[in-house]
């Protein structure tokens, strides 16, 4: 049976201190901070970033059996968001890619389907609520990807159990900007017995007791029921993991996987991990780490990712990015929608950032049929550049251009080993950009026109010009 062979977690650069909410509104907020997807990110683009981190650490020769994407905040309905992730990750054309969208529980479903097929599950969410709500303060944005296979398994699936129950606790009609929740104490009442039933069944199937669990992850859509469940089923208190709600917030479909990634970052061989997920029922998954985990090094640990979320955002900017505050744009025309036929023709370029390299090694971005050096025609090979770091040659801050979050910071960047490109910088403080700064590419949603999302690549600053260029 396929087990976990790799995982990748992505947290956006920005975070909002909850105190900022209280300061602005006069009440609410709380302590700690929540992660915030940038204005140019959505669940699809964040899913791509998680997938890139995943693919950086899969076993050599890994071929997924399918791609399953889950979110409560899909960028598209009717159209498959997983197909965009598939294109950006340059996965095989014969790989099926499916969405499971709408409910928080979809994340578990997508994962279990991916596990059965030896595939990749990508779980991403952007969570918020009405200004001043606990959903707004308590939510977070993240994406996690999990790869399943039979070779190089770092955590095998020992048992699974589920209980499904229908009751009205949390709901949102399609298109609504926020969710609603029934009186909190009701949910606690409804979830309690379901947790007991599912955990008992899973432990029985694995033939272990709760105190044999080394890591216990309990999370779900109902904070109060989750808190109660952590204490009820007999796990050792020291085994129950921190739920990262103070540092990140509750990240919906992605959250249990984010906590699992955090556990796998530090787990040792032979440890038992329980995942208990409360969402319209309860799903329990028991995993056991293998010897291979000792040799597995994540592209970046969850804790490192949390530390790297250094962009302190103002509450006004947060509200603007989430669409609750409509602000005056520059007096410039809105961008035109990307056209479908040219986007299909340049698929590998637009989605996977693949240029072309001529016989002399000159890299053309975008790909070109005619060589800049020598004029040879159609003598090119693909040049995948998404994972190549680059250096800023010159830059500007455009205060007039249309942007969902002015000003536009644009740079000319030169890639290590050849290739130049002009692109936007993102996750950046315009005041600190300098010639010579090191950057890496990141997949973003540039803008949306006529309901068509324009996905493409931007550059973001690497933290420091060091060996850490490999990731952040």
């Amino acid at each position: 049976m396929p087990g976990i062979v790799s995982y990748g977690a992505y947290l956006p650069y920005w975070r909002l201190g909850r105190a900022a909410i209280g300061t602005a509104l006069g009440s609410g907020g709380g302590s700690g901070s929540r992660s915030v997807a940038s204005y140019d990110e959505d669940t699809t683009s964040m899913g791509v970033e998680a997938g890139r981190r995943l693919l950086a650490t899969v076993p050599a020769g890994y071929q997924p059996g399918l791609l399953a994407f889950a979110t409560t905040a899909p960028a598209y309905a009717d159209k498959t968001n997983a197909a965009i992730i598939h294109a950006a990750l340059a996965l095989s054309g014969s790989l099926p890619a499916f969405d499971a969208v709408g409910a928080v529980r979809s994340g578990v479903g997508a994962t279990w389907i991916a596990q059965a097929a030896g595939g990749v599950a990508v779980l991403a969410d952007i969570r918020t609520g009405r200004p001043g709500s606990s959903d707004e303060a308590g939510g977070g944005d993240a994406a996690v990807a999990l790869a399943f296979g039979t070779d190089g398994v770092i955590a095998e699936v020992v048992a699974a159990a589920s209980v499904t129950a229908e009751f009205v606790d949390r709901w949102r009609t399609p298109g609504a900007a926020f969710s609603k929740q029934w009186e909190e104490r009701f949910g606690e009442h409804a979830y309690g017995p379901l947790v007991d039933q599912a955990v008992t069944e899973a432990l029985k199937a694995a033939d272990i007791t709760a105190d044999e669990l080394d890591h216990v992850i309990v999370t779900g859509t109902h904070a109060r029921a989750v808190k109660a469940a952590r204490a009820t089923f007999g796990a050792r208190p020291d085994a129950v993991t921190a739920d990262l709600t103070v540092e990140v917030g509750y990240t919906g479909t992605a959250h249990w996987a984010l906590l699992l990634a955090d556990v796998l970052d530090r787990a040792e061989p032979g440890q038992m991990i329980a995942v208990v997920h409360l969402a319209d029922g309860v799903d329990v998954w028991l995993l056991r780490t293998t010897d291979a985990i000792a040799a597995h090094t994540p592209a970046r640990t969850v804790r490192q990712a949390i530390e790297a979320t250094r962009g302190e955002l103002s509450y006004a900017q947060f509200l603007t990015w989430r669409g609750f505050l409509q602000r005056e744009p520059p007096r410039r025309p809105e961008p035109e929608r990307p056209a479908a036929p040219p986007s299909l023709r340049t698929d590998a370029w637009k989605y996977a950032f693949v240029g072309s390299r001529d016989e002399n090694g000159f890299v053309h971005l975008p790909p070109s049929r005619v060589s800049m050096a020598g004029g040879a025609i159609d003598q090119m090979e693909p040049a995948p550049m998404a994972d190549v770091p680059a250096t800023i040659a010159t830059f500007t801050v455009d205060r007039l251009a249309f942007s969902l979050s002015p000003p536009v910071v644009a740079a000319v960047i030169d890639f290590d080993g050849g290739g130049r490109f002009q692109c936007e910088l993102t996750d950046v403080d315009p005041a600190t950009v300098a010639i010579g700064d090191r950057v890496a590419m990141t997949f973003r949603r540039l803008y949306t026109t006529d309901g068509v999302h324009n996905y493409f690549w931007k550059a973001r600053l690497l933290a420091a010009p060091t060996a850490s260029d490999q990731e952040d």
Partner: protein
Amino acid sequence: MASHGIRDAVAIVGMGCTTFGEHWDRSADDLLVDASSDALASAGVALDDVDAFWLGTMGSGLSGLTLSRPLKIDHKPVTHVENYCATGSEAFRNACYAVACGAYDVVMAIGVEKLKDSGYSGLVVGNPANDGTGLSVTAPASFSFLAPAYANKYGLDPDEVKDVLTRIAWKNHRNGALNPRAQFRKEVPKETIACSPLVAGPLGIFDCSGVSDGSAAAIIVRAEDAHRYSDHPVYVKALSFIAGPAAGPIDPSYDYTTFTEVVRSAEDAYHQAGIEDPRAELAMAEVHDCFTPTELVLMEDLGFAERGFAWKEVLAGTFDLDGELPVNPDGGLKSFGHPIGASGLRMLFEAWTQLRGEAGDRQISSIAAGKRKALTHNLGGAPGACVSFVSVVGDQPDA
């Protein structure tokens, strides 16, 4: 360079130029009527005497009908040309060639742009349907790439660069203040320029050319016929136009401190005109100062200053109205305004005016002192990916 040139084969015998500015009360049709009427009157010919027309506009109309309809041209060839911000120069160049090859006796080159009807700030250009992967920044942003690159290469600190750019804007405003056709007709203190709201990079509002409406036109005939129309014709010495391979944005060897297209078109033009030392031989130059860093870099690309020294020459006043080589004596794009399709012909209008000694308060002394050639330079696109036009004109045929 494989161009043979048409030195002294054709001459300008009449020109017209509207005022440039925010002409809320005049349409592109009105501007075309005004500029063409002035040019015809200047040459002493009627519309029916003109055999063919070249119309330059980037966005104010399509096809020759854009000119023939408002002027009621009676079944004559009208060619619409477009080449970004060098559109007006391109209309002129093609018109000159048509006369030089003998196809026509009298032609008109006319450029027009109506920018202020768009409702947006700055220049707005529509693109063909595309995949949405191109960098969408404004014109000031793409030209502002020059400033940090130049500063980095030649060791200037940000304040020094700002001083240089400010002085260019100050100089062009000062010249424009003397020009009754200019969009901005007042001197602007350096402090005001330096402290103006930022638009892109270090560029403030005052580092940008004026967004304006306007039109300019020229009547061109064979050189041997010129004196039938004008006592003081202006002869075409050189016409060079180059489109680059757009290498800058993809070639790491390009450093954003030069326009290779300008270097090459200048070499070609100097060769055609027989100019060996442009700084010493030219009476003046009208150059494409769309943004202040552009004029800075052009001084080196056109051979007016050594590489890395243009900023010192700017600060020393070399290119002032009373300097060694006056640049943009009419105020340039900065102060005269930049109605795209008209600008190239507006530059020629200043050369025509100065060479004929008709520039009034801003008449430069170099012409009376014996320098009889003027240069116009017009580019379109962005650093690393542009088209460049250079002409040399003079009021005397070479021996």
